[in-house]
């Protein structure tokens, strides 16, 4: 299980001078399921790009299992950190679903039966096994997104980072994403997701970190982050707590970030 840490990380984009991360310290233990939320521009994407070396800190350091990430190239870090980008069309280049899913594990040195097994498992996890020979552009946009997810899953990295996995997905697509996250967790992998969907965040993750203007303003379990005391902080960055949380507060109950929590609290 791989531990991650950001230690007083700041990041300033050289060209624009914009400070996108401001003295952020964060520890993520191996196997955690963490959701990163915040408006566009709050630093979420910048933060996750520091995890695999795509961006390097202007100050502070990033460590993977205690080792400074600075000593490793992005290709090396890709063995530990699998990052799925939000726009699948930014990476799709192969003529078939299978070939696309093979790219990542191939780069990591997998061949033969091992490669095949990794790709089969990943395609199965997202429900694209039947379309292994299909051209990715013959799939709809939401299934291409699942393909992008599969292509990183096949790399079997100890840490999985996904950017906006449920955006553009229908109910079935969201169910696939949830299953993938649960399976990863069961296998001891760390899952970090950037998401705008507060209900998904509250129900699928144990820890929620809220960013605003490059700083962490809330960090805790959903019951704390979506409790009434946190609402001013959330609303200051245009985030609304899930309906269940608001109903629970309206009814004077203990924090109820999810539908299930609300119903359980009412049943008592």
């Amino acid at each position, binding site marked *: 299980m791989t531990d991650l840490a950001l230690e007083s990380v700041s990041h300033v984009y050289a060209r624009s001078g914009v400070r996108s991360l401001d003295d952020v310290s964060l520890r993520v233990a191996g196997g955690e399921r963490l959701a990163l939320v915040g408006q566009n521009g709050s630093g979420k994407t910048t933060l996750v790009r520091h995890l695999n070396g795509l961006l390097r800190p202007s100050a502070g350091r990033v460590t993977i299992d205690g080792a400074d990430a600075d000593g490793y190239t992005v290709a090396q870090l*890709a063995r530990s950190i699998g990052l799925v*980008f939000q726009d699948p069309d*930014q990476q799709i280049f192969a003529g078939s679903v299978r070939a696309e899913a093979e790219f990542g594990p*191939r*780069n990591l040195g997998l061949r033969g039966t091992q490669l095949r097994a990794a790709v089969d498992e990943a395609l199965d996890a997202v429900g694209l096994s039947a379309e292994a020979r299909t051209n990715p552009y013959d799939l709809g946009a939401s299934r291409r997104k699942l393909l992008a997810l599969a292509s990183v899953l096949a790399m079997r990295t100890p840490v999985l980072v996904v950017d906006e996995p449920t955006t553009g997905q229908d109910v079935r697509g969201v169910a696939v994403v949830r299953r993938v996250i649960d399976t990863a967790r069961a296998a001891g992998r760390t899952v970090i997701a950037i998401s705008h969907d507060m209900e998904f965040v509250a129900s699928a993750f144990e820890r929620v970190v809220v960013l605003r203007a490059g700083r962490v303003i809330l960090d805790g379990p959903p019951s704390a982050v979506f409790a009434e005391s946190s609402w001013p902080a959330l609303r200051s960055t245009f985030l609304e707590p899930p309906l269940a949380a608001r109903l629970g507060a309206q009814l004077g109950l203990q924090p109820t970030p999810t539908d299930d929590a609300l119903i359980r609290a009412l049943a008592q």
Partner: protein
Amino acid sequence: MAALAVTLAAIMLSGVVAPLLLIGVGVLLPAAVAGVVRELSRIALLLSLPLAISVVLVNVFFFPGGEAVLLRVGPIVATAEGLRFALEILLRLAAISGAVVLFYLTTRPGDLVIDLEARGVSPRLAFVVNASVQTVPTMVDRAADIAAAQRARGLDSEGSPWARVRGLLPLVAPVVLGSIAEVEERTMALEARGFTRPGRRTLLWRPADSRRQAVARWLLVAALPLLIGLRTAGWLAWLG
């Protein structure tokens, strides 16, 4: 238009003095008026440097029929004629790149397009010109994002030359495929706003075109056939 005229003139004239004059009048003077002399010099220099270097090297050392020897480097000889020829070419190159950069720096793409359209060019053609200019920065940004996504999947961009060549497809294909996929949607968005309506559009404004600009423009354009005529008649030899 001025830029075009200067470029053509630069090609026409021979010798050293003429191009110098041209640079002075056709390029530096308007640049000074527009306040972009420094920027212009910087960009023009950057643009022409690679070409300039090869021009100098080739001509100084390999000019056929050169006799007045300046320098010997083993079997290779630098001649005065070669140097002079190189100088002539360099000056014309400077005139051309200066003119092009001047155009780029002093014209807003939108203005050019609106001006063209106001003079009767089809709006759709004008649009193509404009949109093409905008495409490059967009594609460059996209390319950077694509490179990041592929590197995150282990693409080794810091390795051997062979590895880098193999890495080209995953880098280039999404740029092309993505651009193509985007074209359809962008076309639809344009059509949804009446872009395909035949005929002219209502233009809200036209770029300012003072009398002075118009006069200067016509002078330059008139000068061109004049120069051609004079050159052909052999009357400009003294400038060389």
